[in-house]
């Protein structure tokens, strides 16, 4: 499953890199691509192992507040 989030509180390019670090820390995540320019984060994950709420919670823990984008 792929989900796109809007991340309004990215303040510098390194924020995107911090969010991408979740790729290695969150079980069930296949790929994260975050963009400071677009203020967004694309997450590809296994929905049998992880929920959107858990992704948001993990991002909150490192100081960001992603909002799921509706298609």
């Amino acid at each position, binding site marked *: 499953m792929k989900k796109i989030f809007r991340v309004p509180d990215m303040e*510098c390019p390194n924020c995107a890199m911090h969010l991408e670090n979740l790729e290695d820390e969150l079980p069930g995540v296949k790929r994260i691509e975050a963009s400071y320019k677009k203020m967004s984060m694309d997450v590809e994950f296994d929905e049998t192992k992880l929920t959107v709420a858990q992704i948001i919670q993990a991002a909150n823990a490192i100081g960001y507040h992603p909002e799921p984008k509706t298609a």
Partner: protein
Amino acid sequence: MDLIVAFITGVTTGGLSCLAVQGGLLASSLANQIEEDMQLQTGKGGAQVKFRPRLAQPIFLFLVAKLIAYTLLGLLLGALGSVLQLTPMMRAVLTFGIGIFMLGNGLRMLKVHPIFRYFVIEPPSALTRYIRRTSKTSTSAITTAFLGALTVLIPCGVAQAMMAVALGTGNPLQGAAIMFAFTLGTSPVFFSVAYFATRLGATVEKYFTRIVAVMVIVLGLVSIDAGLNLAGSPLSVSRMISSLGAVPAATIQNPVSAQNGFTVNVGDTGYTPKVLHLSAVKPVSLNWVTKNVRSCSLSVVVPGLDYQKVLPATGTVKMDIPAQAKGTVMRYSCSMGMYTGQLVFDLD
């Protein structure tokens, strides 16, 4: 040229001269580090702690990358000769473009508008992922090193003089050694100025990012102005200021008669006279006269004639100018776009 001479040139004049041109890139890379450290150390919504940016490592990385890039450039210059020389217009466009980039980056840091987010170098996700998984190197280190290597595209006047020497060796290893020695010489000056200047700034924690942003904006504007000077544009701020004090043609007494050639005296702080009136309609010769000059004014660029020359520290270089229509104005500058002058062809 002796390698020790190249090193001493770097320590004495190259460091500050190149810092004036390349300081913006270093400031940009330090700005990224400061932003990151501020976020880590203030805990994003957590308790405030004393803010201490880690600056020694990024400055060191920047300088090492710069050293490697210039050494490789010396290698190429020695091997390929004059093929790699930038034309005056290419240099002008490059300097102007770098100025726009720095200006946009400064406005981004001040959060003026989301559009300025596009004025930042973001390494591709694939690259950061690869680096993250294969080493412990931080991503900002890559950006810092990349910016350090980018300085090779904006050499200062003294560095250009050294590049000309590397070019003249006609030997890749000698060219590389000259550039290595020179760039190594500039490094202590870069490190000291950048490190202590930013440490001083850390005491004003809350406003530090803003101060850096303003510095980047100022350097960007200086770079844009330099780009305009290099292109021979009358619109640059420095030219407009100098034109305010311009003297009418009728009152000018050129020091040397047209028969012996006209003369521009090149000094450490610019060119005299600022506005030189020459004979129109017929070919004239112009003498660039230097005496113990050590600044970037030695590297002179006349875009209207596609002329660029690194003058000797002491001596006279003759330049033949073909006949120009009466009233022609040619603007010239040093290769950094800092010092400017005008040739006005309006004498009979």
